[in-house]
C-alpha cells in the first residue's frame, strides 16, 4: 500500500456542469446573449431550493446590472450553464434583463478624424 505522501492532487472541478444543469437542455442564446445585462428584481426572496450556484448568482446580481458573460466568468461556469440558471431565475421573475447597449454606428472616417483633430487641439 502506498503511503499518504503519494496521494496525488485531483484538480478537476468537483461538481460537473451536467449535474448543475440536471442534464436539462441548454437554452439558445436568443434570450440572453453574452452581453445582455441582468440584475435582481427588487424585493425578491431567494427560493429555498436554490443551489450554491443560484445563491452565488443572487449575490452577484443583487448589486446592479451585470452582463451574462460576466456572471459566467465570476461563477467559473461555461456561459451556457450560467445562461440556463439565469433563464430559470428570469422565468421565475427574479431577474430583470435588458439588451446590451447598442454598438456605436460606424461613422464616416472623415468625421471621426475631424473630431480627433478637434480634441487634439483642445488638449
Amino acid at each position, binding site marked *: *500500500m*502506498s503511503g499518504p505522501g503519494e496521494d*496525488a492532487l*485531483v484538480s478537476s472541478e468537483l461538481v460537473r*456542469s451536467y449535474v448543475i444543469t440536471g442534464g436539462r437542455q441548454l437554452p439558445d442564446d436568443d434570450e440572453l446573449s*453574452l452581453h445582455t445585462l441582468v440584475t435582481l428584481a427588487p424585493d425578491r426572496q431567494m427560493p429555498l431550493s436554490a443551489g450554491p450556484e443560484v445563491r452565488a448568482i443572487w449575490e452577484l446580481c443583487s448589486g446592479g446590472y451585470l452582463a451574462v458573460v460576466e456572471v459566467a466568468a465570476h461563477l467559473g461556469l461555461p456561459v451556457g450553464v450560467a445562461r440556463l440558471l439565469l433563464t430559470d431565475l428570469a422565468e421565475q421573475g427574479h431577474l430583470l434583463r435588458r*439588451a446590451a447597449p447598442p454598438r456605436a454606428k460606424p461613422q464616416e472616417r472623415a468625421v471621426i478624424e475631424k473630431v480627433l483633430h478637434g480634441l487634439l487641439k483642445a488638449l
Partner: protein
Amino acid sequence: MTSLIEDPLLWILLGVLVTAILAVLRARRTNMALRRQSAELRANRDGLDAERLRLHAQYESLRAEHERALAEVRAAAESETKDVLRAWMRTLQVLADEQQRSISDLARLKYGNDPKILADFMTIDHTNSQFGRRAQGIAALCGGWLGRRESAASVYDVARSAQGRIRHFDRVRIHSQVNVAVTSTAVEPVAVVLAELLDNATNYSAPGTPVEINIQSVPTGVCLIIDDAGLGISQEEKDRAAALLNTQGPVSITSLGSPPRVGFAVAGVLAARYGFKVSVDSVSPYGGVRAVILLPESLLTHEVPQPQPAEITTHDFDGPESASYAAPGPSPVTIVGKTAGGLPKRRRAVAVVPQPEPSVSDAPEPEQSSEVTASRLGAFARGTFLGRDTSITEGSQEQ
C-alpha cells in the same frame, strides 16, 4: 483280575484313552502354535497401524505445507497483480483527471456560448467521469489512493460530485439540511463510495424511478442516506454486502466474480481505510434498499468553503471566439487598463456603479494631472452608465 486283563474291552478302552490323550496333546500344541501366530500377527498389525498413522500424519503435514505454499504463492501473485494494476490505474486516474480539466476549460473558455457544442462536451464529460470512477475503484481495491482535493468541500457538493460519476445521474435528488464540509483528503473517497452506492441504487431499481440522497446531521457526524425504489435485496445478498462492507483487510480481487461486482468491495475498503461506516441492511420507505454512509466528525470540518469566483487563467485557446469573451463593451475597468488575461476581472461595484474616485487612484497617468484624469474617467464612466441606463426596459433607476 486276569479276566479283566484279558478283557478285550479294557484294551479297547485303553487304546481309546491313549488316542484321546494324544489327540488332546496335539490339539493343545496346535492351539499354542495358533496363539503364538495370532500374537505375532497382532504385533505385526499394530506395527503397521503405527506406520499408517505416521504416514497419515506425514501426509497431513505435507498437505498443510503445500496449502501454505500455495496460499503464499497466491498472495504473492495477487499482491503483484495489485501492484501492477495500481500503477496502471494511477496513470489512468491522472489521465482522466487531466481530461476532465481540459473539458472544463474548453467548455468554460472556448465553447461555452454554443449550447450544442456545450451539450456534446457534457456527454463526453459524463462518460469520462464514469471512466475515472472505475479507475479509482480498481485503484482502491488494489490498495492505491484516490487522490486528494486541494480544499474541503461541502457535503452537498461531494454528493453532487458523486452524482456526476454514475450513468443515470438525472434520477438522483439530493436533499441537504446540513452546512458542513468534508475534509480535503476525504472528499474523493466519500464521493467514490457514494457514487458506487448510487450506481447500485440506480441499476437495481426501475428505470425512471428517483433515487434520493438525504443528508442529515447526527450526534456522531453526518449521515448520507440513499433510498431507491427497487425490489430490495435478498438476505443472501445482504450478507454478502455486509461481509464486504465490514472488511478490515485487503480484498481479493479475483473473488469478485466475472464481470466483477466491485461496488460494495470498494465501499468496504475505503470505509475501513478512512474510518467511516457504510451499511445497506435497511429497507427504504419506497420498498427498495436504504444505504447509509456515516461520516464521523474526524472527516468533517465546519469551515464550509465559500464558492470561490473561479480563477481566470490565461489559456492558449486563441480561437476566434475568445475575442468575444473580452469586455462586452466600453467599461470603466477596461479603460483604466485593469483587465487581466482573456477575461475581464472586474469588480462588480466598479462595473455596475462606477465610482470615479477609486478609478482615479488606480489609473497611473503620469503626463496629466490627476484632476483631469479623474474628470475624464468620471465622465466616461457616467457616460457608459447612462448609456446602459437609457435603454432601460423594466423599472427605473434614480441617478
